[in-house]
Structures are given as C-alpha cells and as structure tokens.
C-alpha cells in the first residue's frame, strides 16, 4: 500500500553517488522567469505610455533580489528541493505583476480619479510572501513536525473560516461574498489560510485513521462501500462546506475545501467509493442550495447563458469572453487590448486579461505552468517516504490544481463563477502570501523526499568500508 523506506528506490545503495540536487537548473529557470517578467513590464510601459519609467529599474532590482534570496535560502536549507517549483511560482507572480501594472496604467489613462497603483502593493505582498516562505523553510526543518499541531491548525483553520460569517456584512462582504475581514484599510481573505491549515489537518487525521476508513462493509455495483459509522468525517466536511456556501455565499471555498478533503480521503484509503460518496453529497448539497438560495440560482443562471444576463450578473463573464475572443490566437499584445473593460480584472479576472493580450498561446502557456507546478507537487508526493508528507503534498498540490480549475473554469464560462482568486497571478495579498506558505511546505516536503535516505535497517558499515561522504552544502 505504501512504499516503505526499505523498498524506496531512492534510498542510496552504498557506493552510488547521491541524486543530483539540480540547484543550478533552478537558478537558470529563475533567471528566465525574471527575464520574462522584466521584458513584459518594459513592453507594457512602452506600449501604454510610450517610454520606460524609472520605476521599472526599481522594480527590476527588487524583483530580481526577491528570487535571488529565495534561491539562496533554498540552496542552503532545502538543497534537494524540486527545482521546478520555485521558477514556476516566480513566472506566475512576475506575469501577474506585469498585468496588474498594465491595468494600473489603463486606469490612469482612462482618467480614473483613484490613481492608486496596485502593482507596487502587490510587490510588497510578494515580498511579505517570500519572507514567510523563507521563514517556513527556516523554522520547519522537518515537515513531519506539522502533524503534531494538526488539531491546533484545524481549530485555527475553522476559526479563520468562520470569522467572515459572523462578522457584520460591512466588515466582511465584498461583491456579495462574505469571505473577507476588512480592518483599517486592509482586506484579508482568511479562507486562503484556512485552506492550508485544514489541508495539514486532513493529512494528519487521515494518516491516523485511514486503516479504519478503508474498511469496506459491502460491495454495491462494483464499489466497496464503507461502513455506515465511518461516514462521520466526510459528513462533517460536507456540512462545513455547505455552511460556507450558505453563510458566506462562497461557492469557491466551499467547492475547494470539500474537493481537497474528498481527494485526500481517496488517496489515503485507496477507496474510489469515497469519491462517489463525496460527489453525491456535494451534488445533493448544491442542488438543495440552488433550490433554496437566490444568489446561487443567479450564479448558475448567469453561468448557463452570460449573454442573456448581460445587463446584470452575466456582464462580467460576457466581457471576459469578449476579451478572450478578441484576443484570439496571438492576443492583442501586451498593452494592446482593453482588459480594463472587464470589471475587477486585476483579481478575479486576470486570466481574461492574459488571454486577451497574450492570446490563446499565452493563456495556455500559463495553464501549463500551473500544470507543471501541480504535477511537480504530485511527483513530490509520489516519491515522499512518509505517509503524512505524501498525503500533505498531494493535498496541497491538488489544492492548487483544483483552485486553478475552478477559477479559470469560472472566468471562461466552464463553471459557475466563484469568489476564488487565481493563485500567484491575481491581485490580492492574502491569496499571494498564503500560496507562498503553501509552496514553502511543498518545497520542504520535496527536499525531504528527494534527499538520499540514510540507509535504514542495515548495520552501519565499518568505518573503512564507508562510502566517501559527499559534503552537503
């Protein structure tokens, strides 16, 4: 069922050199990501304003420094980490910053009275995110430590999730979704942090209980159904997601949390029946919510035909579709389109801006960068030696995948709109910082997974037979 440490192919046999660390690959890819970002920023400046600004130089130095530091920290404290994780994130953050900057300029050109620039703010958030990234790598030297705080994290996660629901709407509601904490000019979306806390809890809890949860009582239509009494946890998770849907009007977080839980349950127990039960429960819950709540009906209606509700709830998606369609194969070019026509293009609909200006090719490239990030995460999970790390890496990777799918699906009309943001790309401090933490944990796990295992269960070889020790830097 699990790959034990003894059978792990990566356990270094005596005499074989340790696997390569690939840090230089990471450095080269990071350099590439930074280069793309700077070129994108320069093109935006040139196209929209006709000249390069001094801010570009400041930005360039700052942005380059960020990733240089991140790289050095990884090189020192997580030397075996997967070399693709950080560059993928850097590229997404860089592209996001370029597009936010581009939309800032569009707002200025349109003579917007509020000339607040969001790109510098986002850069500060990215910096804060990287500080936390480094902090996690420095403090969390072994990801298994997290399992000890599972129940504490679960509590924190639940509290974070619940705060917006109990706050008055004036402090928690933006555009109809009650998922914010708005204090002193800052808006925090606690759901993004709750996502990580709860994923850690799910991993610890499921590793503990998976043997019981894998017990089957009977077979129905080829499915090994679990015992009735074991349905408890999935029902709790389901109730939770329904509560989020109802009290915070947030289809996104609801879908996200429940999806993560069910998939982790499936991975932990290897029982496909959990997927079917989970899907059934969510479908049932969603159906009931659709019947009972106007805002859910509205979302679904404007999803099915955004153009029919063009003057109301369908406007945003319709505009996004216009942008994407106008972009076509190659896009209007950076600075050449009108992505500012889509309401809240910087956060929820940044993917529409990418598709409009970089075209189908650019948008698909971005989707593939996400795919690389996710599949590297899942690969980490696959080669991870401990069950907790395995499950946690799987959960975190799937969280990114599922969030990207739900958000991009919403923007492109494949799914109903949700309040989630595109990880790393979209404007929004909470999401950015939280996802940096998420990646830090993934990097930590991948470092452990790829690190050559100390030969376990074998008698320590006599000193004279010991292989030459490679000094780890």
């Amino acid at each position, binding site marked *: 069922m699990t790959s034990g440490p003894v059978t792990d192919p990566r356990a270094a046999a005596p005499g074989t050199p340790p696997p390569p660390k690939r840090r230089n690959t990471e450095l080269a890819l990071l350099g590439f990501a930074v280069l793309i970002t700077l070129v994108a920023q320069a093109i935006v400046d040139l196209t929209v304003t006709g000249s390069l600004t001094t801010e570009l130089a400041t930005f360039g130095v700052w942005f380059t420094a960020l990733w240089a530091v991140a790289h050095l920290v990884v090189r020192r404290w997580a030397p075996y980490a997967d070399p693709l994780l950080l560059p993928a994130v850097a590229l997404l953050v860089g592209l996001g910053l370029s597009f936010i900057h581009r939309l800032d300029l569009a707002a200025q050109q349109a003579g917007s009275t509020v000339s607040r620039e969001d790109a510098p703010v986002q850069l500060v958030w990215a910096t804060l995110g990287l500080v936390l990234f480094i902090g996690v790598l420095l403090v969390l030297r072994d990801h298994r430590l997290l399992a000890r705080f599972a129940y504490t994290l679960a509590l924190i996660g639940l509290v974070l999730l619940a705060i917006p629901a109990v706050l008055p709407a004036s402090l928690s509601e933006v555009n109809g979704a009650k998922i914010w904490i708005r204090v002193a000019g800052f808006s925090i979306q606690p759901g993004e942090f709750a996502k990580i806390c709860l994923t850690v809890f799910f991993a610890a809890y499921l590793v503990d209980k998976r043997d019981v949860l894998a017990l089957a009582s009977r077979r129905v239509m080829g499915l090994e159904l679990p015992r009735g009494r074991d349905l408890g946890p999935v029902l709790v998770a389901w109730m939770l997601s329904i509560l989020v849907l109802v009290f915070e009007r947030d289809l996104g977080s609801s879908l996200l949390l429940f999806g993560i839980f069910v*998939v982790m349950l499936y991975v932990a127990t290897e029982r496909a029946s959990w997927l079917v039960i989970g899907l059934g429960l969510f479908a049932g819950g969603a159906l009931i919510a659709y019947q009972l709540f106007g805002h859910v009906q509205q979302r679904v209606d404007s999803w099915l035909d955004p153009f029919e509700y063009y003057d109301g709830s369908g406007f945003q998606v319709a505009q996004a579709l*216009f942008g994407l*369609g106008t972009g076509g194969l190659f896009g209007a070019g950076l600075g050449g389109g009108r992505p500012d026509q889509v309401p809240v293009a910087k956060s929820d609909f940044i993917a529409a801006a990418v598709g409009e200006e970089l*075209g189908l090719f650019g948008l698909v490239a971005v989707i593939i960068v996400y795919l690389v990030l996710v599949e590297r995460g899942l690969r980490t999970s696959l080669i991870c030696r401990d069950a907790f790390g395995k499950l946690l890496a*799987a959960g975190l990777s799937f969280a990114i*995948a599922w969030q990207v*799918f739900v958000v991009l699906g919403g923007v*492109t009309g494949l799914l109903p709109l949700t309040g989630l943001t595109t990880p790393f790309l979209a404007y929004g401090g909470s999401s950015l910082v939280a996802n940096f933490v998420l990646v830090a944990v993934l990097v930590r796990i991948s470092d452990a997974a790829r690190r050559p295992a100390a030969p376990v269960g074998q008698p320590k070889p006599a000193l004279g037979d010991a292989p030459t020790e490679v000094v780890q830097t």
Partner: protein
Amino acid sequence: MNAPLRRVAISVLVLFTLLIVNVNVIQVVRSDELRSDGRNTRVLAEEYDRERGSIVVSGTEIATSVATEDRLTYLRQYPQGPLYAPVTGYYSLVYGNVQMERAANEVLAGTDDRLFVRRLADLFTGRDPSGGDVVLTMDPAVQETAMAGLEGVTGAVVALDPATGAVLGMASTPTYDPNLLSSHQPAEIRDYAAQLDALEIDPRLNRAIDARYSPGSIFKVVVSAAALASGEYTPDTVVPAPDELTLPQSTSTLENFGGSACDPSGQQSLIDALTISCNTAFAQLGIDLGEERVREMAEAFGITGEGFDIPLTVEGSTLGEIENDAQLGVSSIGQQDVQLTPLQAAMIASAVANDGTLMSPYLVDQVRAPDLSVIDQTDPDELSEPVSAEVADQLTDMMVGVVEDGSGRRAQISGVQVAGKTGTAENAGPDHNWFIGFAPADDPQIAVAVFVANGGGTGGDVSAPIAGDVMQAYLEGQGG
C-alpha cells in the same frame, strides 16, 4: 497510496485539458463571433478611432469617413446614400456592418494583411493608422440609369462586363439611406430601423444577390445552350411546338403564354421557338434532352446551388429537385423549383456574350493603401466555359431574333444590335418580369439582367425597356 496518487495526477491532467479545450473553443472557434458581437466595445472603439478607408466608384467616394468632435472619432458618410446602398451596405453602431462594409472590412479598417507593412511604418513614424480604400468596378451612369429605371417598383438590375466579369451596376429597389443607420446616435439608428422594419418589403435586402426568384423564360437560353451543345440541334432544327403539351406520366397539361399557339403547324424551328418564347416547345425539348444534360449546362453557367462571394455574398441559384419528366418539362421553362438571383441571370447573358466563356463576377477593382498606392488589382478570372464559341454565336443569333422580332423588342437601342431574352415567371403573386441580354451583339460590351418582382406585366413590357436604357447609357459613356 501511489496508485490513487497517479490517478489524481491523471485527473488533474484531464481537468487542465478541459480548461485548455474550452479556451480553444472561446479563442479560436467562437473568436469571430465574440469579436464582432455588437456589445463588444473594444473592437468598435478601436475601429471608430481609426480613419476608415473609402469605397470609391469612378474617382468618387461613395462611402467615406469624416472626423467629428464626439466620442467616436470618425463618422461614416455615404454622399449618394440610397443610390449605392445595395452595394455599400451600412456601418452601424447598433446593427454592425453589411455588404461591402462587411466584405471589405479588413481593408477598410486597415487590418488586412496586405496593409501590414504600412501599419508597421505607421507604428514607427507615429502616423495615425488609417484604413485602405476599395475601388469598385461600377459605372456611375449604369448605376444611376438602373436605379432610375427601377423607381417605383421592387426589383434589381445587374450589369456585367462580359469580357472580365466586372460588375458595372448593381441596383436593388426599394432602397434606403445608409447614412441614417451609420450615425453615432443609437436612438436615431433604432428609429430608422423601426421605420424600415414596418415596411412590407425590406429595403436592406440587396435583391440582386440576397434573394432568388423563378426565372421563367430567360431559363430557355440555358436549355437552348444544352440543345445546341449536344450537337443534335441547330437553331434551324424543327422541334415539336404543340398548342398544349400533356406532361409525361400525368394528366396535367402545359400551355403557352396566354394560351396562344406557337405555330399553326404544331412545330417550329428552335430559333423561332425562342423568339416567341414557346413554352410547349421548350418543355418538350428539355424532356428530350434529359435531366442530366439540362442540369450539367445549368451548372456550367453557375447554377450549382452553391453561394459565392464577389466579395459580397451571393445566394446560390438552383434548379431544385427534379423528380420526373413532368417536372423536368416545367423546369425547362424556368418554373417549378428553378430559382435564380438576378446576378446569376446576368451571368448567363454574360457567358453567351463572351464567346461561351463565363468570367467570375467581381466588384472590387483595386485595393489602395491610404497613400493611394495600389496594393492589389483584381485580375479577371475565368469561371467556366459552358458552351463553345460556335454555340455562343448560335445563341447570340437566336437572342438577337428575340429583340428584333420577338418578345424583347422594347430593349432595342437605335444603331446598336441587342441580343436578349424575356421572362415572365409565375409565382404566388403577380408575375415576375425578367430580361437578360447584351449589346452590341457582335462585340458585347455589357450584359445585363433586369428583374422586376411581381411587375404583373411581361418581361418584354416591364423589364426590357430598363435593360435597353442601362445598356445604352453604358455604351454612350464608352463613346459608343
């Protein structure tokens, strides 16, 4: 846990593939539809920001953009509005663009690939980019005469240069004022559109190409061509021409126009049958030739059922399904399900005029860059060769007979020999009146088709005089 992990990895791949497929559908398959959606303001604002190219006829701009002070920088104007409306179409904030404004949109908007180098240059020199001009093949005298001739009736005139296929005139009535649909005031535009909608006949339809009608006897030219091309007939071949023809495998009978007799002897030469437009003779002739030969000849003349672009989109002309000889007989006199556009009718005359070679009709002579340099010149293109030069000569002789001694006398022009054929087609309402022809018969310069919907008279009375006037106007203009 590795087996389910792999499955999760594959599921993620599937989910992302779904996203990518969906984005492909939006950005490639639905791209044009979304781009041109009237509510998509990005393309519109960009287009109105740019000086749109002109549509030019004989050195005069019939559609042009003038700078304004309002939010949309340029206003589209049509100085001779209703005269060229069937061809120019309109350029509307509310209803999009149609006809030439649509067909040549890329050139006019300046997005055409042929203007690429120019756009690049604009980028570097900082000039405001502007669209290219489209110079049409039309002749103002032909267009004016045609529209004047159709005044007060519903109909269409198409005139072609038989040697090249160039469209010399394309009239359609009733017409409308494209200026009123192209203003910058959506309310005004909607008001005018509502007025047009309230009419029984939609003036925005270009009857020359957007609609097709029963051709009646003008189709006999195609059947004659099939007969002559078979080698079994000459214009002098005597064919049966009874007063009344009982259609095969049926009890229904077919009579001549007005129930008259074609010839007391019950038979006459092919040329005489065409001259007096004898229905029974041609119905029997079509049946004798068989469906295959009639259909092949019709297709060679362009009646294939398929539409085409000139670059305005032309509705396909068709023979319809012919199920038996009875229907073949009726089809051979241009009734039953035979349906032609007036342009197609003109193409028949044009092919006969051009020694049997049909040229592809075209409306755009030149595409010009904003600096008036010619970046594309249309070369005439041969579409097909329905009949040999010899057969074309025989058909010409027969059609001269129609105008000199037969039903088409009123198309005569003094001093010029005209060839032609009339048509009076039965339909749900009063008869449609047709005339196709060309002049001069020995050296054709112009081929025309005149169609008057539900004119109620005969092709010879109603349509032939208009055709004569149009051809005369053109020949006089050419110094003939």
